């Protein structure tokens, strides 16, 4: 791990890393069941700096914005290095958004250069038509000629004879990136993050979970996502690790990479963790009863032996079939972006795969807290990282209140939006919008989002996320809890009553509704009265989700409002 203290900016840190680890493998790119390309650190440096020269010729310099709209791949990181080398402000845009949404963000941030791939460019009609004031658009993998407008160029068409690019130095307080937070609608929120934010985050996070040369990180979360950007780019490169990409995100190709490319680390969202568990259980169901007993025995033994701290070699030996099924070299999973089920995190830990649960938001660079592994605590999002102060403000009688944070990793504000900035940044403190409490040992527990909070007629606060976790693992595709008064907005229910809570359920094909309802009733009954749901609304469409797979509650509520009726809610008794 290269110590960050003596560096002023990300470009400088990365440039040194590419020299220091020159003969190590920096990037591996797979496509389906093939390894398509691999690059050493030196090759990344050469490719990145040649691209930097092209950026220089497009007059990109200190503080100019360079946007990237690409799926996860080697060219993403090479492009990002080129932009940072030129002292530019990197604007990573979610490749999963629709073309028009991407263009709305491009209009908002007005980049000088856009780096993109054919599959994304194809959907950006205004960019193709030259309607946006972008001076250069580099498009990779274009199967046909690009518009001949002096703006478009093929990413790959770097002339052989190019003078070297000039490195542009930036200071700690200068802007490094502009990252759009995965908000669920409303005005675009472009978070201004400085080099100091990143270098400090790198220092505190990687000190806890350092990569070693030879480690292989599998990058599947979109790289514009704070976690992947830090762990799968800055952190990995500054530690000499290898970043592995898979161009096709179909489940079987992801599995192929995990099983065949020596993956040691991976960051996922809770939904992927859930898919992993499902696969483990399905595998097990096919096995003989005796095998299932042996599996359970090995899990318990491993859990007992790793009570105080992880013991990787031992776990791998005890739970070999599990490790082989998931990925024989997998050592650690990072999970963030939404609420993680404690039982699920514990299961993976018991099987010898520690799950690092982080809590953070784009406005705080990457993470503010991570959970403890010694001993393992899956029930909380952990303690603040070094240099992070947390406060619970406006706490209710049970100690739950809004989480505020102070840290060098807190962003500088939203682009062109002093109003929203003033709302979340006050006296150097960041208002997170999350609700939680801190236990006596200093661990943060999250219960929900302030804006999702439901206040009952009895004055009790309810957090839909909290109730949803009680129904975790039900035999349905998706489940979300709402207050009916919120969805249908009757004036009469301005003060909501507990009877108004209901669960929207997308059933599984072929699962008998009665079995599901019975289990739901059983679990509902275990909840305190005021948290019980009163009814169930069956729903056939996939829930809208953000890039980090959080349910877009507002959008889902709108869909329900338009296409469902309150009368469709089936009552559940007990």
């Amino acid at each position: 791990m290269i110590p960050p203290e003596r560096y002023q900016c990300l470009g400088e840190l990365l440039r040194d890393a590419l020299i220091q680890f020159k003969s190590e493998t920096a990037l591996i790119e797979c496509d389906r069941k093939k390894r398509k390309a691999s690059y050493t650190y030196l090759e990344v440096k050469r490719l990145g700096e040649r691209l930097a020269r092209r950026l220089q010729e497009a007059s990109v310099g200190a503080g100019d914005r360079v946007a990237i709209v690409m799926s996860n791949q080697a060219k993403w990181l090479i492009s990002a290095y080129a932009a940072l080398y030129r002292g530019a402000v990197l604007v990573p845009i979610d490749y999963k958004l629709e073309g028009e949404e991407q263009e709305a963000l491009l209009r908002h941030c007005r980049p000088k250069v856009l780096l993109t791939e054919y599959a994304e460019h194809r959907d950006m009609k205004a960019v193709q038509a030259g309607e946006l004031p972008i001076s250069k658009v580099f498009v990779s993998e274009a199967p046909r000629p690009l518009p001949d407008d002096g703006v478009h160029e093929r990413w790959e068409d770097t002339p052989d004879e190019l003078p070297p690019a000039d490195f542009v130095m930036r200071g700690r307080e200068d802007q490094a990136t502009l990252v759009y937070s995965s908000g669920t609608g409303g005005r675009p929120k472009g978070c201004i993050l400085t080099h100091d934010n990143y270098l400090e985050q790198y220092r505190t996070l990687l000190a806890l979970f350092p990569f070693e040369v030879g480690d292989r990180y599998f990058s599947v979360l979109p790289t514009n996502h704070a976690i992947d950007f830090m762990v799968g780019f800055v952190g990995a490169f500054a530690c000499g690790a290898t970043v592995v990409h898979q161009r096709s995100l179909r489940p079987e190709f992801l599995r192929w990479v995990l099983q065949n490319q020596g993956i040691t680390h991976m960051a996922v969202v809770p939904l992927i963790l859930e898919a992993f568990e499902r696969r483990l259980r399905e595998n097990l169901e096919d096995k003989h009863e005796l095998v299932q007993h042996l599996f359970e025995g090995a899990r318990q033994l491993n859990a007992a032996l790793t009570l105080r701290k992880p013991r990787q070699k031992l776990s791998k030996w005890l739970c070999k079939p599990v490790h082989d099924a998931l990925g024989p070299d997998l050592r650690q999973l990072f999970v963030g972006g939404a609420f993680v089920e404690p039982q699920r995190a514990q299961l993976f830990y018991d099987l010898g795969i520690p799950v690092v649960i982080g809590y953070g938001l784009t406005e705080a660079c990457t993470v503010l807290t991570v959970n403890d592994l010694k001993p393992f605590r899956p029930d909380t999002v952990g303690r603040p990282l070094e240099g992070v102060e947390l406060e619970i403000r406006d706490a209710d009688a049970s100690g739950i209140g809004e989480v505020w944070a102070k840290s060098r990793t807190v962003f500088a504000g939203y682009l062109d939006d002093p109003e929203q900035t003033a709302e979340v940044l006050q006296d150097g403190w960041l208002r997170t919008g999350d609700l939680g409490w801190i236990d006596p040992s200093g661990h943060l527990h999250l219960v929900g989002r302030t804006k999702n909070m439901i206040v009952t007629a009895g004055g009790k606060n309810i957090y839909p996320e909290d109730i949803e976790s009680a129904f975790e693992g039900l035999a349905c595709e998706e489940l979300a809890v709402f207050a009916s008064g919120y969805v249908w907005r009757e004036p009469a229910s301005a003060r909501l009553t507990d009877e108004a809570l209901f669960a929207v359920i997308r059933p599984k094909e072929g699962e008998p509704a009665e079995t599901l309802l019975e289990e739901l009733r059983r679990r509902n009954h275990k909840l305190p009265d005021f948290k019980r749901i009163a009814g169930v609304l069956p729903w056939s469409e996939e829930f809208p989700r953000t890039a980090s797979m959080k349910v877009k509650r507002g959008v889902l509520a709108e869909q329900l409002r338009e296409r469902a009726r309150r009368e469709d809610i089936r009552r559940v008794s007990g």
Partner: protein
Amino acid sequence: MNRDDLIQKLIELAAKRFGRDASALKADDDFFEKLGIDSFQAMELMTDLEEEFDVEIPDYELQGVNTFLKLADVIEPRL
């Protein structure tokens, strides 16, 4: 193989994979809805189809494809 045969074949393969009755499926049916599958399962179906027809379809070509007709549009030029 003509287009109608292709569509019929797609319907049969999809019906078989998810244990449905092929005769209940039509070319312009939304297969997510009719088969009750999610995008993960749809991707698995694509991989089956690629093997069957010996073609390779980039994931981005499948964005917005939700009927057997549209699926045939993507596969046909590659046959």
